[in-house]
């Protein structure tokens, strides 16, 4: 009985909804359109609910860490305190509350920007230490990268207009060609995955297994 609850019913629901949504996308039927719209509204509601579920999961996980005095538990306590404070301010007083906005702009915003800007440090360091013409392949990569870099530099591009076309060619021909391969490959992979789900060969999304149906 449990296999029916745990595997067969969820799989049947997934297959039915998947087929319906695929049909709704490709066929212009008013009935399918209405069904699709209703399902999409459900999905939006479920994903909104998932945010709440995520909050509960984080509180539970870090609550346990604090209770067990696990390693770095003060970090968990700090996380929970800031999370609760942020929630109380945001939900209780609204997102235009001055204190909420202050924390958002000066703590969350600044930390978020700092995290993103670390990428700049990595790139700079890598440019010096790793971006080297060790062989012919690396030299080709280096030259292409250098052309793109010069084309992206506003002042160099302003001084030499032809550089824009050169870097444009690198972007439009070799880069776009390889990008297209990745896009097509990913799309084929996605189609294969969807087909495997429809014929119940793929069960990994149900959890607890390797994903290959018996």
């Amino acid at each position: 009985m449990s296999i029916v609850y745990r595997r067969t019913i969820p799989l049947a629901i997934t297959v039915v909804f998947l087929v319906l949504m695929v049909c709704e996308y490709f066929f212009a039927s008013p009935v399918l359109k209405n069904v699709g719209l209703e399902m999409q509204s459900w999905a939006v509601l479920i994903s909104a609910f998932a945010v709440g579920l995520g909050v509960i999961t984080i509180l539970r996980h870090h609550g346990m860490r604090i209770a067990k005095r696990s390693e770095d538990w003060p970090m968990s306590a700090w996380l929970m305190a800031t999370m609760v404070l942020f929630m109380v301010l945001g939900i209780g007083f609204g997102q235009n509350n001055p204190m909420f906005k202050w924390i958002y702009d000066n703590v969350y915003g600044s930390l978020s920007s700092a995290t993103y800007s670390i990428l700049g440090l990595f790139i700079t360091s890598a440019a010096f230490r790793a971006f080297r013409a060790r062989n012919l392949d690396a030299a080709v990569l280096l030259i292409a990268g250098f052309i793109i870099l010069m084309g992206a530099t506003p002042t160099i591009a302003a001084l030499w207009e032809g550089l824009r076309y050169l870097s444009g060619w690198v972007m439009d021909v070799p880069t776009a060609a390889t990008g297209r391969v990745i896009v097509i490959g990913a799309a084929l992979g996605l189609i294969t995955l969807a087909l495997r789900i429809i014929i119940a060969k793929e069960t990994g999304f149900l959890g607890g297994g390797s994903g290959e149906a018996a």
Partner: protein
Amino acid sequence: MSKWIRSNSVAVIYAVLFLITALPILSPLGLPISIGPTTRKFASIIDSLKKDDIVFVDINFSPGSWAENGPQLAVIMKHLWTKGVKVLFFSLAVDGPQMYMKAIGQATPPPSLKYGVDWVYLGYLSGAETAAAAITKDTWSLVKSDYFGTPLQNLPIMQKIRTAEDAQLLIVVTSGEMSWMWVRQWYERYRKTYLLAPISIMVPSGAPYQQAGQIAAILAGSRGAAEYEVLIAKPGEGATVTDALTMQLLYLMCLIIIGNVIFYTQRKGRRTSATGGI
């Protein structure tokens, strides 16, 4: 001294990077900017909009990428305000509402434009691609009120917007890979124009879609925003950081050259010592 620099090369690289980023922002150098073809195309598509045309704008980024997406959104807003179009803003990113508030603070609409009549903000819509599909198919079924809690029936602009069929253009300002799904949910489904304003690092990934015409034009990061500001003569944050961006990229090129010179010098030295100087 040179030994100290060699052993602390990373610290030295970071310190110089900090200086060449901070100094041009504190004291602008006024370096020239050239306007690229894609920025021109992006602006010309917005320019071609007629009065009362409807534009959907997805504010899909978080504060981390404000330096790139913020100037883009602000300059796009400034341009849209001049066209007399109706704009429906919404966010598929959870931080969207704060980004909208910050951007509209920088691109204040002229007094002749009224909220609810000329533009509206629907807030954050959870559900990613599902929400994108739903909002384009039937906006009213997904959203009942705007971000500020006003019911849609009380907003005059919303009387003209039901689906993506009513709109002429979609603009997505984003820092995430989720923007490619708009090709499926907007261009392929409704055959309407799609403009993308991503962070610079995403531009190569967008090249195949742009070549296929699925994305009409891409505005590349803060550099694109700066070019756009110059093009429509509305200076903003983008132009301010262009000097710093130029200096950073020049510095990056110098580092690559120095790194390669050191590499070849050392390799030559190793070969010479291996052959005993013969």
